[in-house]
């Protein structure tokens, strides 16, 4: 066999292996989709059809016409939006401080932030519950926004620090020589250059906040305040589970995150470099 045809066989084999691996790895999402578009309306049919012969979006219609699911989506949207509006500016400031001023206090704060994101949240939820109960803030979206923000801050600050580290200081020097102060240099020069980094951090914060479970579960007691993850689990606690509807709601819930992820993906390696990003 010539070298060229050997290479061709190798590429074909490789592509086949990759395709098989992708099929296995994506299968849980695929299966969720197949379940959600099941024509019989009930997923409890046996044997299951691996490739559906006919599909129907009836379960989506039922899910989205029921008031409670829409309500949970609105709650999730509000909490996520408020969280990023609070977390991203605060994290940018902290990240900038950590990137540019490396003296006593700032270094230690940076170290504490690194440790903070490794703490078990099931431990912290006990005193946090106390704290918000005493403040009369149980079943309150702002309590959840505060808790989410604080848990996202360590990741987001370090991510922003990584982006700021890659911006040459000479740019700010010029602004400072021209008589500006650090704040104007930060606002006028650093922020515009860091827009891609800000976007990546925003997306990352959205993904974390959108899927957050334990704080929402503990702090939000009334079903009208629930976010989608809590609502989804309540479906499964019912006696008969409508898996087609559960999967329809779950997939609708996941679509925005996956779209955001596709935008984020190329920045992800950079963000990971700045201290290992993992929810």
């Amino acid at each position, binding site marked *: 066999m010539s070298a060229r045809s050997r290479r061709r066989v190798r590429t074909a084999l490789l*592509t086949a292996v990759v*395709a098989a*691996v992708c099929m296995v*790895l994506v299968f*849980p999402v695929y*299966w969720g989709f197949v379940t959600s578009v099941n024509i019989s309306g009930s*997923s409890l049919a*046996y044997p299951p059809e691996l490739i559906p012969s006919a599909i129907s979006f009836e379960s989506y219609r039922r899910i989205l016409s029921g008031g409670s699911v829409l309500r949970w989506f609105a709650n999730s949207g509000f909490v996520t939006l408020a969280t990023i509006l609070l977390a991203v500016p*605060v994290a940018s*400031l902290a990240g*900038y*401080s950590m990137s540019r*001023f*490396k*003296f006593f206090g700032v270094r230690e*704060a*940076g170290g504490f*932030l*690194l440790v*903070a994101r*490794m*703490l*078990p*949240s*099931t*431990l*912290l939820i*006990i*005193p*946090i519950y*106390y*704290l918000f*109960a005493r403040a009369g803030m149980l079943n309150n979206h702002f309590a959840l926004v*505060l808790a989410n923000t*604080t848990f996202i*801050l*360590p990741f987001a600050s370090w991510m922003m620090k990584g982006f700021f*580290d890659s911006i040459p200081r000479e740019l*700010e*020097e010029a602004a400072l020589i021209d008589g500006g*102060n650090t704040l104007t240099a930060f606002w006028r020069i650093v922020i515009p250059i860091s827009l891609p980094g800000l976007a990546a951090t925003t997306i990352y914060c959205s*993904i974390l906040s959108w*899927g957050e*479970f*334990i704080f929402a579960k*503990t702090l939000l007691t009334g079903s009208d305040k629930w976010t989608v*993850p809590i609502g989804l689990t309540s479906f*499964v606690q019912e006696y008969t589970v409508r898996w087609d509807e*559960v999967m329809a709601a*779950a997939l609708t*819930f*996941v679509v925005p995150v*996956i779209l955001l*992820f596709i935008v984020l*993906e190329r920045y992800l*390696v950079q963000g*990971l*470099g700045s201290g*290992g990003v993992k*929810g």
Partner: protein
Amino acid sequence: MYTDRKPPLLGRWKPGLKLSRRLTAYGFLAPAAILVCLIIAYPLVVAATISFHDIRIFQSLSNLADSANLENYRRLFANDAFWRALRTSLIYVVVTNAVALFIGLSTALLLNQRFPGRNVARMLVMLPWPVPGVVAALAFTWMFNTSFGVINYLLLELNLVNAPVAWFTSTIPAFIAVIAATAWQGYPFFTIMLLAALQAIPGELYEAASVDGANSRQSFWRITLPALRPVIGISVLISSLWVLRNFDIIYVMTGGGPSRRTETLAVQIYVESFEYLKMGYASSIGMVTLVIALALAFFYLRYIGKDFY
């Protein structure tokens, strides 16, 4: 990146403004510091405090009935349930990481090759990364459903089992289901980290090796793996901390069952506090978990310290 050789740049032209520079630094940090103190540091102190008291329900912390004592810790270390949870956590962390690292390394090596449609493949491989834990848990709960689940269907069709496996009513099958879901959510992290590391290995190394007559297996063991070792180490550490803290997947899939056999430390803290309402006792489990997490974090900080500060 900052090195000690450079003098601090921002202070150079305004030597008189050292204090203002300091204030700017602290001012920028202040909002984050306030939030973190309020929602992480202060609760940590409260958790440590209540771990020394017998608190059964949500009661006021200002008038505690007992003085600080080690009773919770004494009961904890005498309790089989705690040791079982510790062991469960250990198995969960080790097995999940092993599976996730294996998938992550394999996919990273595949994605590092040249083939048509590589960008699409990369996107598909990394797809589970942003999927929320609850969704992963529900998808796997459904797949592992005993009567209607697709896993049992495939196992029966392929004649790997004679009767449907009751996944959630015995220990090891329940463990398999939970670990499958966690590893599925966790492997893309390894793929991302290892793929970046692979792409940083200079191609000349492989060329030189093949000139010297090395085959691709030798290249893998002698070049690729040694180059990946530091990244594998740090990724396993970060991932371990993540699995140790993981709560939603086990809680949603098994609730710690059957008969608390898949109850990790993270889940046990929650069950003891919010289901049995033993807040003091739960906090003492939490403090032990915290010590384990901090021990892991210590190694992480030592590694990061070299690079980032």
